[in-house]
């Protein structure tokens, strides 16, 4: 018999303190844990370091945390769709650390895999290399990229079972399974929560042992829907 990890959203998010580093899944809308972010906005933890591919768009997801003054630093790949994030960066109201997208993914995976970092030639002749340690491998230089872990990860799953096995839908997968490995406290919101065995063992994207809390979503809100531009 496997442990049951279903938890209320309020209780799961209440475990987070001020100053926490929090990873947020999602690439644009798909896979963004909007409901967990809403609850974090409601509870109001401050001085947060947020790790997310992007800053969503104004009025959505990460933007609520920015608008609410809860964010100290953003580690990200691209914030071009969020004017507020750019303005806050320019006004030095938040610190922003930019990574190449695959490097951010890989740094998170390295954290999840219990590695200290990895060696790559990505960005080696560009300003992205500034300040990074260089190591010689077989006579050629490689940059040291450090592993990234967080206190907390919020992930959005299409389906979960009560033990925390997760499946993601389509391109809502993106950073979610990586972040689900890389935090001390992993909270998954799921559109459907099934009993153990509800997800075939071959079909699981994130194995349950990586997950601490499973939160069942009710009706899916407007933020999750198709954006009509």
């Amino acid at each position: 018999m496997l442990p049951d990890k279903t938890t209320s959203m309020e209780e799961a998010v209440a475990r987070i303190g001020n100053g926490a580093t929090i990873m947020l899944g999602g690439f644009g809308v798909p896979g963004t844990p909007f409901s967990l972010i809403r609850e974090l906005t409601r509870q109001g933890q401050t001085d947060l370091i947020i790790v997310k591919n992007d800053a969503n768009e104004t009025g959505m997801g990460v933007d609520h945390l920015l608008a609410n003054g809860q964010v100290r630093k953003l580690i990200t790949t691209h914030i071009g769709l969020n004017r507020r994030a750019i303005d806050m960066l320019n006004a030095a109201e938040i610190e922003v650390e930019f990574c190449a997208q695959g490097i951010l993914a890989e740094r998170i995976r390295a954290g999840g895999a219990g590695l200290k970092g990895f060696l790559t030639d990505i960005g080696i002749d560009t300003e992205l290399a500034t300040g990074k340690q260089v190591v010689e491998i077989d006579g050629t230089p490689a940059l040291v990229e450090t592993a990234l872990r967080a206190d907390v990860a919020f992930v959005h799953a299409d389906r979960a079972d009560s033990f925390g096995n997760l499946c993601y839908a389509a391109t809502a997968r993106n950073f979610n399974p990586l972040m689900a490995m890389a935090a001390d406290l992993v909270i998954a919101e799921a559109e459907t929560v099934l009993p153990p065995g509800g997800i075939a063992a071959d079909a699981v994207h994130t194995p349950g042992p990586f997950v601490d809390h499973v939160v069942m979503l009710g009706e899916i809100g407007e933020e999750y829907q198709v954006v009509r531009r």
Partner: protein
Amino acid sequence: MLARAAREIGPGLVVNLGIGLPTKVVDHLDDSIPVCLHTENGLTGIGASLPFEQADRNLIDAGGAYVSTIPGSAFCDSATSFALVRGGRLDLTMLGAFEVAENGDLANWKIPGKFSPGAGGGIELAQKARRVVVISTHVDRAGNPKLLNACSLPLTAKSCVARVYTDMAVVDVTPEGFALREIAEGVPLSDVVAATGARLNLPAGEIPVF
């Protein structure tokens, strides 16, 4: 330009079409040629773009457009998606550009003080795709050349561009610098030369028109 660029895409290739103009190349693909389109947010085998009414809220490309799957599509996480890029399995990428240098240097992600939203996935596409081509207007909005002796903006990757498709010409990056290969219908050669901010090597004989 887009139709001409689409002819790059031969059978069997794995191709990533960057955000902006390159994405539009898909409308000019010959459906009978077997290719695999990749988008770095985690999909191999991109199908047709969908209007909002038909869109799946969980299925977008890296530019945020709603797309569909085809038989044989696969989803993967972001680490695996970039493993494909860095690991040598991406045959071709088509990218936009602010500047291209005659040695193939590419700048397309940052204009200091003006535009610094972050590099997204462009660095790895430019540095690691087996072939990088640029699709871009020949000059910027102010009329300044984008093909230059050297880039002035922060680089995306060094010496990565093999070819540039513009509204005026097809230009290869060669060890001797830019080489004009084809010229757009109705564009005088003198205009192309004037709009290019570096030496443009001309072919012997007549210049093919596209």
